[in-house]
């Protein structure tokens, strides 16, 4: 008999059959409880204003309206902020962004609720508003204290460098556009209880915020989430407000309330990825090797703190990407604007920080007239002393040189670069470019206390198992991976393990499913629970059958006891008869990590995930239109728990990153209204935007050096940053379109408009140079 192998098998998603038959239930698909009401919010028409008068009498009198709610009506605190209490669920006295929720209604239908909110009469007195990052910088509007990381003496070292460059560029935000919009269904229970179904990555925080808003103890609120139709960070804190409004309305009316955001409301009401401005100064040698560098990162936080502090920190933690800086200083400012509060988005600031250094490296290469790949390689981390990050953590598991070697070969980078240059000489309008960039991404929450997880496993007397843990499923395949881990440990088929919804009443005090850590932590917690259960059963069986404990072996659906063998069902029944407890909890806290924020010194990450991408782009120099012709991705997932799921994460992450850096452009009017608030004006990638030739591989030699669950590595966020290669390839194509005139000025996203401007600006430089020559 062989061991049952569940881990590392490419099992389909646990809900695969439910998804393809339309039977997978999301919150909006749950049968509505009797008497269920529907909520809608009235939104601010100003970016920053005092509310002078608010008359909701016509709203209250509208057909179907059962209750009208303002911030003053909250039984508890009207506060939804996850870290600071600086964000009301419903604005009171003043508004801080265009689209902010000012009041809410519950009505007998969704349609009637939406009609009713249009009837409010609100008078505003405008206050000065900072809409864009530049406005906030000009006014010195800091949302949070600046922060600095530093090693060595960058100013002195830079003064000694043979070469020096400085510059500044902008990169845009991103709307999550999870296909399932924000939604919550709250049902009042007896004695102050509140049951909430929410589409959330963080049920525990929704529980806390709902309790806070209701003025109840946490224990009276239960939050459940079986699955989300996408999260991407957008449901880490942004689900709080939705659930809070539904719950307070439910309390007020005594009836269940469903609050589902329409797409336009979702896009105007909820936070997005932070846009950044990055300034740099860098000194380097003939080979492009960086000797000293300083970064100024400015993040647009929006109107409240939300998670901006931790996000801006992570941008700093990734300002090095894969490169060693002998002397470095990174300064970060977190700016306040009168726009929606920016929030978590896959990568959590990492992509912004990483794009910063990749830009700098590209600039260095173009300045020296070298292949950017050679400059990248020259700057990679290496053996001590070239292994120290700007936050004084040693990089111990640096496998990028191997990954980059492999990808350089398999993608044919060098030959293709030569071929592209030749092709460009014969193509007057279309121009191509190529780039190969690495990713090093730190795994763990940088807020150290979040690195903990719990799980609950219950064995029933028929041998079936119920599995619960603190992680939430948003499509990333967490549930099937944890199921595989438990199946392998207990040596039973996955079919016997029932996966259940994340539920604050089963596993409490959970961390958000975020920071790519879902499987690392919940998988370990579930493994611990399974082991506890197994130990109990082993002790019992050893005693009962008189065999030594090490002779009790769980194998392929059976338990071997020396000569004897029995099924888990039989053993469970016997153990129960003998009064052995058949449920177990498991707990995991990530080891090794620590970080002293005051000193900007420590080991915030348990390990790093690595990958590299090679992209080839083509641009039309007359229209700026661009596309990625070919992408080769090679990504390290350690030992894959499920290669099918991991591959999906790599492809999907890349595609989402591609959207961020090419087509997805958020646009605010000068009045502060979000103009791009629907798919008609906000373009996420569709099937035809994919690279024609898309080659994705999991790095076969991957293995986590740390003792992670089955030596796997986190995979949720890191692949998003592989798309930086696409951006750099477009930039390369622009540079090749107008050769010899320096480096293009290209902010992200590289929309056709920006590409065209960049081409024209380079041509302008040509003209200026020619004029200067003519004058000589």
């Amino acid at each position, binding site marked *: 008999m062989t061991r049952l192998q569940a881990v590392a098998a490419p099992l*389909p998603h646990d*809900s*695969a*059959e*439910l*998804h*393809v*038959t*339309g*039977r*997978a*239930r*999301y919150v*909006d*698909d749950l*049968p509505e409880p009797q008497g269920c009401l529907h909520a809608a919010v009235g939104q601010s028409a100003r970016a920053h204003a005092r509310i002078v008068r608010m008359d909701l009498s016509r709203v209250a009198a*509208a*057909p*179907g309206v059962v209750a009208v709610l303002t911030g003053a009506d909250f039984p508890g605190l009207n506060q939804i902020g996850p870290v600071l209490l600086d964000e009301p669920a419903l604005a009171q006295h003043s508004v801080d962004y265009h689209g902010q929720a000012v009041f809410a209604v519950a009505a*007998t*239908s969704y*349609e*009637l609720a939406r009609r009713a909110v249009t009837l409010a009469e609100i008078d505003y007195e405008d206050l000065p508003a900072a809409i864009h990052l530049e406005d906030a910088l000009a006014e010195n509007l800091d949302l949070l204290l600046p922060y600095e990381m530093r090693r060595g003496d960058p100013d002195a070292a830079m003064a000694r460098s043979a070469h020096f460059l400085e510059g500044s560029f902008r990169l845009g935000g991103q709307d*999550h556009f*999870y*296909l*399932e*919009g924000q939604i919550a269904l709250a049902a009042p229970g007896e004695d102050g209880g509140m049951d909430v179904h929410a589409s959330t990555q963080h049920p525990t925080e929704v529980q806390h915020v709902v309790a806070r808003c209701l003025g109840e103890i946490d224990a009276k609120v239960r939050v459940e989430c079986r*699955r*989300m*139709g*996408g*999260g991407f960070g957008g449901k880490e804190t942004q689900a709080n407000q939705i659930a809070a409004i539904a719950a307070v309305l439910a309390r007020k009316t005594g009836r269940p309330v469903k609050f589902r955001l*329409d*797409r336009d409301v979702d896009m105007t009401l909820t936070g997005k990825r932070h846009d950044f401005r990055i300034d740099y100064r860098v000194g380097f040698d003939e080979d492009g090797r960086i000797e000293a560098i300083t970064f100024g990162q400015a993040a647009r936080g929006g109107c409240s703190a939300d998670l901006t502090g931790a996000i801006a920190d992570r941008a700093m933690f990734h300002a090095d990407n894969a490169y060693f800086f002998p002397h470095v200083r990174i300064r970060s400012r977190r700016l306040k604007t009168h726009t929606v509060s920016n929030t978590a988005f896959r990568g959590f600031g990492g992509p912004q920080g990483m794009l910063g250094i990749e830009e700098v490296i590209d600039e260095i290469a173009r300045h020296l007239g070298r292949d950017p790949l050679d400059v990248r390689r020259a700057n990679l981390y290496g053996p001590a002393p070239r292994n120290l990050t700007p936050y004084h953590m040693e990089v111990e598991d640096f496998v990028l040189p191997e990954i980059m070697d492999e990808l350089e070969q398999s993608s044919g980078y060098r030959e293709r670069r030569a071929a592209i240059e030749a092709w460009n000489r014969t193509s007057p309008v279309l121009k191509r470019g190529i780039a190969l960039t690495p990713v090093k991404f730190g795994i763990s929450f940088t807020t150290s206390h979040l690195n903990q997880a719990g799980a609950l496993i219950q064995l029933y007397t028929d041998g079936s198992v119920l599995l619960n843990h603190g992680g939430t499923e*948003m*499509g*990333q*395949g967490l549930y099937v991976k944890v199921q595989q881990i438990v199946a392998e440990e207990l040596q039973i088929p996955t079919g016997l393990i029932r996966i259940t919804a994340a539920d604050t009443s089963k596993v409490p005090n959970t961390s958000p499913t975020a920071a790519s850590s879902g499987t690392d932590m919940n998988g370990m917690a579930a493994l611990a629970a399974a082991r506890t259960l197994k130990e109990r059963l082993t002790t019992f069986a050893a005693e009962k059958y008189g065999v030594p404990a090490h002779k009790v072996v769980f194998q392929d659906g059976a338990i071997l006891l020396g000569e004897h063998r029995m099924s888990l069902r039989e053993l469970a029944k016997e153990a129960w008869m003998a009064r052995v407890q058949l449920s177990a909890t498991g707990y995991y806290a990530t080891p090794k990590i620590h970080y002293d924020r005051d000193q900007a010194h420590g080991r915030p990450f348990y390990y790093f995930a690595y990958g590299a991408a090679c992209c080839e782009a083509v641009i039309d120099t007359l229209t700026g239109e661009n596309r990625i012709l070919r992408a080769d991705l090679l990504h390290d997932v350690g030992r894959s728990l499920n290669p*099918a*799921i991991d591959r*999906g994460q790599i*492809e*999907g*992450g*890349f*595609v*989402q990153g591609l959207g961020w850096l090419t087509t997805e452009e958020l646009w605010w009017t000068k009045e502060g209204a979000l103009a791009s608030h*629907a*798919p*008609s004006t906000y373009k*996420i*990638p*569709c*099937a*035809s935007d*994919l690279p*024609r030739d*898309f080659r*994705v591989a999991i790095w076969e030699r991957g293995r986590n050096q740390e003792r992670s669950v089955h030596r796997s590595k986190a995979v949720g966020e890191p692949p998003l940053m592989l798309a930086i290669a696409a951006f750099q390839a477009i930039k390369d194509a622009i540079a090749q379109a107008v050769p010899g005139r320096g480096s293009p000025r290209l902010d992200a996203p590289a929309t056709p408009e920006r590409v065209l401007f960049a081409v024209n600006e380079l041509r302008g430089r040509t003209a200026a140079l020619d004029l200067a020559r003519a004058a000589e």
Partner: protein
Amino acid sequence: MQATETDPRPGNGTGEPGPIPVVLTINGTERRLEVEPWTTLLDLLRERLDLTGSKKGCDHGQCGACTVLVDDRRVNACLTLAVMLDGASVTTVEGLAQDGQLHPVQDAFVEHDAFQCGYCTPGQICSAVGLLKEGRARSDDEIRELMSGNLCRCGAYVNIVAAVRQVMDGTGAGR
């Protein structure tokens, strides 16, 4: 359910015209319904007929999550008024499997992991079934182009295209 159903929701109080009778064949079953003139097919399916497989991603005809088949043509149910469909036959994701057997496109989606969160999946599948019936797509590029109205934010496109391709080849519609 009875043969005739009226909208159980209270009047909208705006003095607009009342419900209109229509006959629809939904997943093979004829339904006599009374619907408000502004009720979309998507709302009718999801809110009154408990067919929640079709999803509402944008409600503006821009994401494809609500794609269903009307007389074998793929349409965005959120943009289609139910009253316009009198006499039509509607197939949703719930109606594709026959006698407990998944439709080949459904099978292919499972086999190829052609989803992550699954929210776009019912729309993708209906769209793919419609596409195959149209017989227009020959290459992967054409599949991508002709499926570009169905957004997948999880970016499962590679596998979606592979799943469609497999069925296309299997049915002899391939190149």
